[in-house]
Structures are given as C-alpha cells and as structure tokens.
C-alpha cells in the first residue's frame, strides 16, 4: 500500500478509474492541454480492462451510434499506437511492451440455415453504414481458416476487426499521460464528493474525496466500469450501470492454427440481449504468445466471481463446434470479469444532466477496449469545448432511452 501522506491535489479534471477508458480520457485531456489527476482504488487495469480479450470490432455492431463510435475508433487506433510507439518505444528491446495491435480481421460463421439468413441480413444492414463485409461459402471460409468445421452454412469476413493487448494499451496510455503531466493515484478510493454551493442554483461537483486525499477539479469523469454506478451514487447522481459477467478460457501454447477472430454467428445476438440466464456465444482467436482464447459468456450474477463449471462446458462445446480439431487442446486457465452495461445498451460519454461538474465515460459493455480512444476523444472534445467527431447526443446521459432510468440528483 502507498505510504505517502494524504495530499490535496488540484486539477482541471479528475478521472475516476484507471482502466482503458479512464486512461484514454486522461490522455486525450492532457494532450488537449488540461491538468489531469487519475484516481483508482486499486491498480491500473485492475478491473474489466484486465479481464477481456482486447477486441476492436465493427463486425458485431448493427448500424447506429455504437457502430459509428467503433468506426471512429478503428481510425484512431493505428495513429494512437504509432504515437505511443514514438513516445514510449513500445515493442523495442528495453522499451515499453508492445501493444500487439493486430489488424487480423474477423470471420463470423453460421453453421445453420437460420443462422445464415440472419447473418446475411445483418451484414446487408451494416454495409450501407460503411462496414466492409464479404460473404464466403464453406470453402472460402476454410481457405482463411483451415481448421474450421466443414459445416459452414455461411461466413462473413470483416477485415476491419482487430486485436490489441488491453493491459499494455491501458498502461501505455497512462504512461503517456504521465509524461505530459498527469498524476495517477492508485490505491485511492473515492469516498465522497467535494461540492461547491452555487448560490441559488444548487451544488456543483468540485472534485472528489479519496482515501489518499482530496482532488479539487472543475470536472469529475467517472470511468469506473461496472463500478461506475457505485461511484456516481457516492457523488450524488447515480447512473444505472450493472455488471455482466464474462469468462474466457485460455489454452496452452499451440502451433498457430487460428488466424483471425472467429465467431459463431450467435455472437451478434448475445450482446444486446437482456436475459439473466447464462448465455454463451463462441469466439475463438490466437494471441501473440501462441495461446488460444475462447469466449464468451454473459451472465447477470451481480459481482459473483465464483467458478461455474457449466460456463466452461458451454464455452468449450462452442469452440469445438467451430474448430473440431481443438478437442485435444488443454485449457490451462480461465479468467473472468464484469462488463459494465446500462439499460439501453449504449456507452455513456458526456456530462450528467443532474449534477454540474459530473461526467460519465462508461457503459461500454464488452466493447470498451476497442471504443476507448473514441470515447476519450469525445469526452475531451466536449469538456474542452471542441466540436466532437461523433453525435454527442446519442451518448449523452440525457438521451431519452436512458433518461427514464436516472434518479434525480441529491440536493
């Protein structure tokens, strides 16, 4: 535990949460000239950012604001990675670890007629929005992925899907922010708001109290992932963010046999659904270290991290449906995390309508890694008064589909 005495920090913006979204927001703000303090009750990437696969996807998003954000992110990632490489010497001997940004592409595979027609329709809806999606038959799919089952009814290749190492990316964004003057306080848990009374117009949020001291700031951005609900409630304006558990299997290192992200066509349906029961939808991919990752499950079990063997069974069965040749591959570990979602299943990025000074950057569900740079850019644009690249209203906490769920701010 840190041993520095309690301090009082002053900043333009305090970001609560040192996961990838908080890190991206912090870096975008310092690049824009703001003084930033980041606080996290644990360590950087200690929450959801350390529990995912590193997905940068357009393939799973139908036309709409989230797809637009994802497309913006796909544009931003290569330039961002190049900047971080120049600043931190990522991937060089003795330098920062490599972000492992790999534009490997994705292949969505339907093994049933019903799945195929749904997939075809989905891709057809995505193309007008600018998504590159190429239909393939079984032999075309197996030319890309020789290990794939022959029972392919239809496959769609999405060349713009990519992979990144999420913890390295988080740490690199923070390191870059620190180099530009940001202060990152880990082990600093938010315990309450700093408030300013504004005459007759009520209070405004003027910073946070933490276990490592106070941070006074003109704006507080809550980027605490599934704990954003808790934090925003502490600050006086709760946002209805709930956790959705996900588990991933990791195999031992294998000869390279899966070359892209490969998903069962059911992946698309699982993301937006609200069912409480266990849902699994297959995603299989290799990592730079040679292991194979197999996801993904979705359960609403609060923050219960207990192991459930049924989840492992379903993930394994799903993987073997797509890649029957993997039956002998040992799983050496499983890990899990909690995705943050809000009732209307869209990220929240922007000011809170109830409490001046409070901002949100959360609710990305399973897409937070990929969407982080676009979120950071949007929040920074809005905070610093620049025209945003995205439709800010769609991500605002005041949007009609979310506003109905907001409880009024405490006086």
């Amino acid at each position, binding site marked *: 535990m840190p041993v520095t005495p309690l301090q009082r920090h002053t900043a333009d913006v305090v970001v609560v949460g040192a996961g990838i979204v908080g890190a991206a927001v912090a870096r975008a703000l310092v690049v824009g000239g703001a003084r930033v303090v980041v606080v996290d009750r644990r360590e950087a990437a200690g929450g959801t950012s350390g529990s995912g696969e590193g997905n940068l996807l357009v393939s799973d998003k139908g036309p709409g604001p989230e797809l637009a954000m994802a497309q913006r992110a796909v544009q931003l990632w290569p330039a961002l990675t190049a900047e971080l490489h120049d600043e931190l010497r990522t991937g060089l001997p003795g330098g920062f670890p490599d972000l492992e940004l790999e534009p490997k592409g994705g292949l969505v595979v339907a093994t049933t007629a019903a799945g195929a027609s749904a997939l075809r329709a989905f891709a057809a809806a995505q193309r007008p929005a600018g998504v590159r999606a190429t239909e393939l038959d079984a032999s075309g799919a197996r030319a890309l992925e020789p290990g794939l089952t022959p029972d392919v009814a239809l496959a769609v290749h999405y060349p713009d899907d990519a992979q990144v190492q999420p913890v390295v990316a988080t740490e690199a964004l923070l390191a870059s922010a620190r180099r530009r003057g940001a202060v990152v306080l880990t082990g600093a848990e938010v315990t309450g708001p700093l408030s300013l009374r504004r005459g007759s117009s009520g209070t405004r949020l003027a910073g946070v109290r933490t276990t490592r001291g106070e941070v006074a700031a003109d704006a507080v951005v809550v980027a605490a992932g599934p704990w954003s609900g808790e934090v925003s409630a502490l600050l006086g304006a709760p946002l209805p963010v709930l956790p959705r558990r996900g588990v991933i299997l990791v195999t*031992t290192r294998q000869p390279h046999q899966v*070359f892209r992200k490969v998903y069962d066509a059911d992946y698309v349906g699982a993301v937006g659904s609200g069912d409480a029961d266990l849902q699994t939808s297959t995603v299989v991919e290799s990592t730079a270290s040679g292991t194979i990752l197999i996801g993904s499950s979705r359960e609403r079990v609060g923050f219960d991290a207990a192991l459930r063997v049924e989840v492992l069974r379903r993930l394994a069965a799903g993987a073997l449906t797509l890649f029957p040749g993997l039956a002998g591959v040992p799983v050496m570990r499983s890990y899990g995390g909690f995705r943050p979602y809000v009732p209307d299943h869209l990220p929240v990025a922007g000011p809170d309508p109830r409490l001046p000074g409070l901002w949100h950057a959360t609710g990305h569900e399973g897409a937070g890694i990929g969407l982080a740079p676009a979120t950071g850019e949007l929040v920074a644009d809005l905070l610093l008064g620049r025209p945003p690249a995205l439709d800010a209203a769609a991500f605002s906490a005041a949007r009609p589909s979310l506003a109905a769920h907001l409880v009024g701010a405490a006086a």
Partner: protein
Amino acid sequence: MSAKRIDPARDVARTATAEPVTITVDGESVTGVRGQSIAGVVMAAGGSASTGGALRRTAGAGSPRGVFCGIGVCFDCLVTVDGVRDVRACQRRAVEGAVVTTQAEGLPTRVERGEGEHRA
C-alpha cells in the same frame, strides 16, 4: 543427459530387474525399463539426437528444457505422445511402442489485413 539407472548388483533396495520397454523419441528408438516414466527413459538414454538431450525447445528463444520439478507441477517436460500434445513426460508411464515427439512450436506470426488470404 547423463542420468543413470542404478546397477542392480549395487542396489541396497534389491530392486527386481524389470523387463525392458522401448519407445521412439523423434523417430529414434530408446529403451528403458518397465515402470519408468517417459522422462526417465529419455534421461537415462541421454535424450534423442535431434533434441540434443532436451525434452522440449522453448517458444521464444528455442532454449532446451529437460525435467525440472519431476513431480508434475512445472510443466517444463511437455511432450507429444501418440499424437496427443502437452503430456507431462515425468508423469506419463513409458508404454511399449509409444511414439513420443518433442515440442518446439515457436510463436505465431502476425496475420496482416488482407482480403481472402492468410499466412501460415
């Protein structure tokens, strides 16, 4: 490796002589005694020519590895047995005729963006 089975004449435990067991390691015949693990058979025979005595080559640096913990917790001794990968040689009994191959898979190469093509 210079591991050595005890000379039965000097064995204070007076262990019975066991029948031989022959396996192949990377195509070469290697003989030990019944009851031994694959690791024990390979160690006593000095390993195989292709591996220079190692049971495995690491993925990153290609460094040779042999037995380390001997009790199945370090996973350094993983070999392929009869086509099945990732078998701990120190735990798997050597069975007559078993086909053992050492593993040296290397790291994956990046897949670059490209329509309809892949690189192995």
